[in-house]
């Protein structure tokens, strides 16, 4: 079966520190992958997406970057975190045979202090 793993579940980081969030999909190949951010009590904002290895599209200019070093691995990074980077980060994926819908990971709550 297909599953998505996202870690860590929670993270507290000081301002100016680096960030690396990882998302891995199992049981499928060549998925579309997405990073969304949810501010407290708000909807989801698309940050980055990838349709293949090494292919990254950025939706919102910001302090973050994304990489896809392997087919089923999607990484969200920052060199220096800002207070405004705090939020709930969700990885999502789409596979062809599941139709036009996205499935989501369990998310990472990032607090920048």
């Amino acid at each position, binding site marked *: 079966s297909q599953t998505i793993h996202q870690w860590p579940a929670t993270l507290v980081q000081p301002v100016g520190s680096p960030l690396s969030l990882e998302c891995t999909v199992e049981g499928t190949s060549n998925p*579309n992958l*997405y990073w969304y951010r949810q501010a407290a*009590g*708000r*909807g*989801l*904002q*698309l940050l980055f*997406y990838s*349709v293949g290895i090494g292919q990254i*599209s950025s*939706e919102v200019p910001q302090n973050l970057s994304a990489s896809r070093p392997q087919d089923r691995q999607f990484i969200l990074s920052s060199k220096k975190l800002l207070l405004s980077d705090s939020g*709930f980060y*969700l990885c*999502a994926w*789409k596979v062809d045979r599941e*139709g*036009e*819908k*996205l*499935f*989501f990971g*369990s*998310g990472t*709550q990032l607090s920048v202090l």
Partner: protein
Amino acid sequence: AQTVTQSQPEMSVQEAETVTLSCTYDTSENNYYLFWYKQPPSRQMILVIRQEAYKQQNATENRFSVNFQKAAKSFSLKISDSQLGDTAMYFCAFMKLANDYKLSFGAGTTVTVRA
């Protein structure tokens, strides 16, 4: 860019009763998909229901059904026989065809089911 609007920040419903959540969207596209996602306190995003714009028939999934009004660009969700486990934040989302399957979300409606 597509705009999705959920005008009800919070709603409360008695257990076993029905609640309807509203959603409107703005697009110039003719073919697209609409979704309702549920986010319970665990914060896991769960797909509730999906509607293809080219289908006139409203989608249903057990106690969940939608009222899709394409001309009015309206997509409401009805939860029938509400259960305590339905307590969650509900998000309406839009997906344009041939756009790498990106979803645009509304701000969400928090639904509380009272015992």
